[in-house]
């Protein structure tokens, strides 16, 4: 049984309300931080904890906090990135919906550590009901004296606002989020300057994911060293995983980092194995933007070691044999899934969500989608696989923000690991026209058609 840090009290009736949350020990970290610690000590605890950003990139949170420019004399801000829009990722929604005060407690403690007097939670537009839950929780916290002027008589002031975005994936990128929060079009900014130097309103700003901020209260209450003892190696603490796809028990799980993928997939405590007991075909471990893994690379690394739910183990061997932990959007496919259709679907998403600011992403994502659409609909040409590979390689690394990479990696990984399926689509268009191809006839049964003659 994994240790629970974030979801420890999730089953307490009424934990959404301030009274119950407070009765269960809520806001203790704010009391401890403001009364017994200096801001720098809080930052130090977070550094010691080894907490890494839970939004996807996995950058050490304490280090990010220490970059904030304290010498400029400008106001500082903490912005919570609640623009959860990655297909397959829905963990932050769970946290905010059922434990809104945990996030607010984390926001207050973190804001105190950063010396921020004005903080924001930027939430995606589609989470309107969560927006209302957070607004209510903020009002409750303010009424109880945890927000506003002179918190706990310490002289520390903090205003906290929830800002609802208009529903754009790109606004989850920290600089685009800041632009959007300033009321502008959600286009990523060119870095440097980084937000820690010039962020919201050109003031020093830290942007952290919901889960990252929600982890701070436990760290302050229990110490960074205790947090670092959970997990394994540089992947410390726990992680929320939102599991979906062809598994028996999809949902949001809190796991200790270091759990084996096998145990997470197959134990009854977690996903309970494959739905309908069909064979496992592929896995996306960290949300739609990370590379897909074929069945033979899911449970074991190329060294024959157990694949663990950690940043390091999931990325073992680079993209040739690994993937990323990313945002924890764990998507499982059985043998009825069509990888080509799945890749086209993701490509369609990234094409739709590209902001259009830089050339490779604006033009390349559209081109990728069009070629994938043709292949999936029986109009592919032999040269299209090489064309796809070429387009994705020209997008990757050449764009302003990581959306270009997010659009490129799934295509690259799909071709790398499932090239035969692309060939099958191109060579046997009549077999895929009913859109039921791998459900009626799993690819393992028709694989011999393409392996005998390679294009």
């Amino acid at each position, binding site marked *: 049984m994994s240790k629970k840090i974030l979801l420890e009290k999730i089953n307490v009736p009424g934990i959404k309300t301030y009274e119950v949350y407070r009765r269960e020990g809520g806001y203790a970290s704010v009391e401890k931080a403001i009364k017994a610690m200096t801001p720098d000590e809080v930052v130090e605890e977070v550094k010691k904890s080894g907490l890494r950003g839970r939004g996807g990139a996995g950058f050490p949170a304490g280090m990010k906090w220490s970059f904030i420019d304290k010498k400029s004399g400008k106001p500082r801000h903490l912005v919570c990135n609640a623009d959860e829009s990655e297909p397959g990722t829905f963990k932050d929604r769970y946290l905010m919906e059922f434990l809104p005060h945990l996030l607010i407690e984390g926001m207050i403690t973190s804001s105190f550590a950063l010396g921020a007097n004005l903080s924001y939670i930027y939430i995606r537009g589609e989470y309107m009901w969560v927006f209302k839950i957070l607004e209510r929780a903020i009002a409750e916290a303010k009424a109880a004296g945890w927000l506003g002027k002179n918190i706990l008589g310490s002289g520390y002031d903090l205003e906290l606002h929830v800002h609802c975005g208009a529903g754009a994936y*790109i606004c989850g990128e920290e600089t685009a989020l800041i632009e959007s929060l300033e009321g502008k*079009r959600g286009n990523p900014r060119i870095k440097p300057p980084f937000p820690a130097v010039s962020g919201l309103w050109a003031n020093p700003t830290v942007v952290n994911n919901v889960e990252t901020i929600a982890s701070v209260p436990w760290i302050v209450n229990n110490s960074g060293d205790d947090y670092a003892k959970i997990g394994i190696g540089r992947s410390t603490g726990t992680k929320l995983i939102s599991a979906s796809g062809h598994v028996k028990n999809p949902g949001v799980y809190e796991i200790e980092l270091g759990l084996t993928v096998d145990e997470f997939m197959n134990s009854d405590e977690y996903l309970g194995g494959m739905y309908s007991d069909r064979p496992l075909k592929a896995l996306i471990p960290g949300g739609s933007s990370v590379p897909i893994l074929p069945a033979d690379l899911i449970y074991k690394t190329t060294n024959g070691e157990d694949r663990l739910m950690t940043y390091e183990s999931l990325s073992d061997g680079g993209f040739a044999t690994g993937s990323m932990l990313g945002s924890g959007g764990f998507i499982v496919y059985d043998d009825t899934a069509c990888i080509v259709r799945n890749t086209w679907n993701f490509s369609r998403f990234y094409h739709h969500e590209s902001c259009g*600011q*830089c*050339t490779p992403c*604006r033009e390349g994502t*559209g*081109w990728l989608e069009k070629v994938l659409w043709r292949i999936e609909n029986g109009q592919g040409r032999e040269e299209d696989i090489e064309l796809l590979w070429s387009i994705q390689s020209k997008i990757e690394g050449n764009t302003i923000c990581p959306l270009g990479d997010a659009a490129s990696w799934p295509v690259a990984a799909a071709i790398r690991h499932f090239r035969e399926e692309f060939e099958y689509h191109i060579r046997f268009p009549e077999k895929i026209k009913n859109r039921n191809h791998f459900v009626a006839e799993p690819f393992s049964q028709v694989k011999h058609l393409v392996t005998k003659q390679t294009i």
Partner: protein
Amino acid sequence: MKVTIDGQEIEVEAGTTILQAARMIGGESVPPAMCYYSKLKGSGGKCRCCLVEVAKGSDADPRPMPKLMASCVTGCMDGMEINSKNSDRVREARESVTEFLLINHPLDCPVCDQAGECDLQNLSFEHGKSKTRFIEEKRTFEPEDIGPNIQLHMNRCILCQRCVQVADQLTDNRVHGVMDRGDHANISTCISKAIDNEFSGNMIDVCPVGALTDKTFRFKSRVWFNKPYNAHRECTTPGCCGKTTVWMFGNEIQRVTGRKDEYHEVEEFICNSCRFDHKEVSDWVIEGPREFEKDSVINQNNYTQKLETVNINTEEGILKGRLEDRKKISMNEIDYDEKIDGEKLNSDK
């Protein structure tokens, strides 16, 4: 601080970007730029044409930068070493960007008013390919009237956003901007407003392609048939320098633009009155003909030397050849009694 670009060292001040340093050196190391415009604040970084390879970060941190960097927004560091023209990665990236820019850009140069002055044409000439791999239907937009002076041809737009920055920085109330997202992002006015600000015409000058063209000049002439002259007038519009280039066909001024430097950026912005309303020769003090880069299309009409009669040496040979052909075809001089093998045709043998 010292920076080295393609092996050429130069000393620059702190805050200089790589592109600016490259322009100081000049020549082939200067990266192409479609969205950067030195006269507009905050421009650059979008088109990704000017990507360069930073082989050495600085003397303090000599590690190379893993990704290619946009030279127009990347500041120089002391001891930085940059590969521009010399790098295969850079060349490949520029070819990629050129290909991306062209997949949806209509190849209507023969009827485009920007032809001859188009930065995308120049980029394609340098980095483009003769064949396209894009077989899909090109993206198109509905025509839109954005005002009395400027014709918007959205299909040609490459979203450099220079025109938006002109409106932001030169005009009082910006009424246009970028709508939508991705490859359907487009330049448009907000709720069908008209762009009629006094400095709006500068949007035409900063547009690197033919997306924004001058309504008073459209289809009047190809630019290489015009003769450009530097001219000026006493303009009373605040903020207007009154220094322009007038484009003449015979004694007629067909078009007025700002004066552009070697990187096709206007030196100073001009008002709409100078640009659209003053088309009489008597309105201007003509300073003299403009100089153009040697390889410019416009230079084709720049007859600075006395023309001499051209002697076609091959003419005589052609005529001689034709004569022989004619003889062969008519067979006038062939002895009908003689077969080709030498035997008499009517021989008794």
